[in-house]
């Protein structure tokens, strides 16, 4: 029974870590550079 608990816990820990990795990767790729611009510059960039 405790082994069951240990392996379920290990599964939870791994998938939580995978969730954190996803968030970390999202931070690394950062926000959309065009979306971050003010409206006028964004329109200019998109038109270009």
């Amino acid at each position: 029974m405790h082994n069951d608990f240990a392996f379920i816990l290990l599964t939870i820990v791994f998938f939580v870590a995978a969730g954190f990795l996803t968030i970390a990767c999202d931070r690394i790729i950062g926000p959309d550079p065009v979306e971050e611009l003010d409206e006028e510059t964004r329109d200019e960039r998109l038109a270009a």
Partner: protein
Amino acid sequence: MSGAAWLQIVVFVGLIFAVTPLLGSYMAKVWADGKAPLDRVFTPIENGIYRVCGIDPESEQRWTTYTFALLAFSFFSVLFVYGFQRLQSHLPFNPDHVSAVRPDLAWNTAVSFVTNTNWQSYGGESTMSHLSQMAGLAVQNFLSAAAGLAVMVALIRGLTRRRKQTIGNFWVDLIRTTLRILLPIAFVAALVLASQGLIQNFHGATHATTVAGATQNIPGGPVASQLAIKQLGTNGGGYFNTNSTHPFENPNGFTNLIEMFFLIMIPFAATYALGRLVKGKKFGWTIFGVMFLLMIVSIGVAVGFETHGNPALNRAGVTQLASSNQPGGNFEGKDVRIGSAACGTWAGATTGSSNGSVNCFHDSMTPIGGMVPLTNILLGEVSPGGVGVGLTGLLVLAILTVFIAGLMVGRTPEFLGKKIQAAEMKMVVLHILFAPLVVLGFAAASVVLKTAVSSIWNPGPHGLSEIVYAFGSAAGNNGSAFAGLTTNTNWYNTTQGITMLVGRFFLIIPMLAIAGSLVRKQATPETAGTFRTDTPLFGGLLTGIVVIVAGLTFFPVLALGPIVEHLVGHF
């Protein structure tokens, strides 16, 4: 090498070239927006599933939501398969009254099937009930393969869409891929295999008395249906302990050929689908060419060394030439029905495609013959790779290739019209680093830790190859075993489980991040200075990158394992 062996290779290659455009074209239509073949049949079924599961098929997901959906689905799948095995003694379809699977083994097996690895530290016929095999393992054979293909489609959308935020809907991709691609082909494949003698029943073992008076248990079970998806989904987990060397899994030369073809059929067809979806058929064929070249070279080396035989036996005056009495070559660990050439072909195809099935024992191959499957696995299994993830892995390396080419000429690299910048390169590096980290880390620990050393049966270079193979197979989600190593222990079941999870999800997450980053970008018009990705030059460069990346990472361990064994054994 016999004429039959040559014929098998020629027909195998012919089938690849014939089916790739047909199946690839169908797959592209399934994943593209708009109408797809057999909509009238599949759309009502899909809509029913969406309604029951509360899925809005029109709602698209950002890459993070797509990834969280995949992670959540996989998390519950692990718990479900684990529970099945732990409770199987209380569940129906257990005619042989097998008991609950031990926790560490049940966890290893659950992770193994959910990650599309199918590493098996158990003998199916003595450990699993029919229900665990069918509802636990075979279902994951479908779903893990479909999840891999979903990731591939998401990355392709990242490459083809312009100035969007979303890369599709994971649940829709999973359901459409399962229903429209995997299930119909698996159904036909199961019928073909059953017609050739693979068993398909719900019987328990039949107890027979041999002519010599010994008692023999002849197993039963729904084998043909599981075998079909085992090969098509590049899963590889056998119904029986001896996998495709068992006559109920692989009874004759035809099944050997067709099972081998089933396992590379979808990965090769995916390259054609890629070409259609990115509107660059030549690019699809270039990727196909790289995969095909790597596969053929690996098959050639493995077949060459295995059919050449063991020089020590030649020196002892034992003939190893093909004749009416024997298929010839290095015959240890091989079945007379299958022979050395088919062993080498199968080993090259399965380990290039993340399918862990075996039709001979890799541990008994010659050192360089055995190095072929090990190298294929360490190359990242991109020849042609597992369903979905193999092509995705090669596309990540293609991004690295254009980056390196860009550095050579001082231009910002572009890939299929998208600029490759720092964010994508960081994801590529993460993707490349995670697998070696767990493979070499756990292999190193297994060589020195007392608890792990007791599993080693063969000390010296061969033992090192076995250990590296075990973790390489787990990280590459291949699942084949070199064997000769006791892996059904707490240490191996747990560390390999972690390795499989890292090898699957920690590689998929950066891939999807690349998709999420690229999907937001505007297309850059092609100019005279753009490095084209649909030429033999790019194919050659990509092949070099595949070999160099893996070579730089793993050559030292290969030198200490199979290469030393080859030199010391005077092969």
